[in-house]
């Protein structure tokens, strides 16, 4: 059971890192990457809870593990949607950020 605190602290650090990246990075794609790091940290915390909740001989707690599997699939779906929205935004406005003050020309190239 020695791994639990180490990976628990790793999960906490990943949430911090991901949140920082999500706030500070300007490019949409980098924000999506940071969002995935944040999610990975949350999942790792679930994994630590699952390992700690395990029985002596029966392995880890299956309930949080199953939740993480569900979460991973939904996180993938959210990432796929976010990437497509970012690409479409880039296609229409030429923008690579979601900054409100940028001077990207609206109605750029919808011809692609």
């Amino acid at each position, binding site marked *: 059971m*020695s*791994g639990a605190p*180490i*990976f*628990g602290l790793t999960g906490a*650090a*990943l949430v*911090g*890192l*991901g*949140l*920082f990246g999500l*706030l*500070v*990075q300007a*490019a949409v*794609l*980098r924000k999506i*990457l940071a969002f*995935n*790091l944040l999610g*990975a940290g949350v*999942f790792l*915390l679930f994994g*630590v*809870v*699952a*390992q*700690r*909740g*395990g*029985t002596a001989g*029966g*392995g*880890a*707690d*299956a*309930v*949080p*593990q*199953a*939740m*993480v*599997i*569900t979460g*991973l*699939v939904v996180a*993938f779906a959210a990432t*796929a*949607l976010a*990437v*497509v929205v970012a*690409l*479409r935004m*880039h296609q229409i406005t030429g923008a*690579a950020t979601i*900054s409100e*003050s*940028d001077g*990207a020309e609206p109605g750029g190239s919808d011809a692609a």
Partner: protein
Amino acid sequence: MTLDGVLAGVLDGLLAALVLAAAGWTLAAPAAFPATIGFVGFGLLLTLAWVRLGAPDVALTEAAIGTGATGVILLLAVVRLRGGEEEVSAATPGRALVLAAGLLAGAVGLALALAVLALPDPAPGLAAEAAARTAPLGLGNPVAAVLMVFRGLDTLLESVVLVFTVLAVWSMAPDRHWGGRPGPEFPRQDDGPLALLARLLPPVGLVIGIYIAWVGTDAPGGKFQGGTILAAMWVVAWAAGLVQAPSVADRRVRLMLVAGPLVFVLVGLAGFGIADGFLAYPPALAKPLILVIEAAMTLSVAAALALLIAGPPEHPPERVT
């Protein structure tokens, strides 16, 4: 502490340091492409961490979906989102905002770390109950039992989420492309490593994918992990130009996409008649019913993931002559 314990602690510490280093690189890399490569490395390291946490089912999912499928989508997007450096540097927040964000993120991370260290001991959990109720259903993998029986509604809704995501991605296409084939079209490769890989890998990968989906009820694996491998095999052949994506108007594609959730709902409704209620199974029939759902779901997961990787239609539909 025994020598094994010390060694395991050192290994876990190294692994945790590598995971954090890869995460740091993903954020700090100078460009999007190295950052995405860093993210894929991060995912593979995290897969090892899941193995160390006694979660082989999660490790498989992390490697297949969290790293593989997500990585492909991000890499395809990086290539298309080139440029815009000036815009990005203009939109990057100033020092004061970075400091404030750092303080906020640091505080959240620290609070979580303290919460981890303060977790109750002995830890409460449902491990014993889940394990005890898995065997009477004829299943060998408690994670599969949680996904399909104890919390089947979560999994049903998740499978519907995948269908809706495909619809949302398709709806990003301009009107005139509706009915076209999703995603970019790759030129047919007849020579080179990709051409070889796309011919040698799929036969092996299809068997492995189906096997991993099939053993899921008794061993680590299942529909999501197996379905992702099946989707990956299609993506390899697609990227080598050997197969074309089917039109979004193709009824067979749509049927494949909804087959899993549909079978899941029908078996769930049958639970009113043959068991205690929605998504309940009579113990004697539990395993066969679950395998039927898993088989249909494997097909739908593979279709959904392949379509999500391909993206919205990018060309007007071809005129049938």
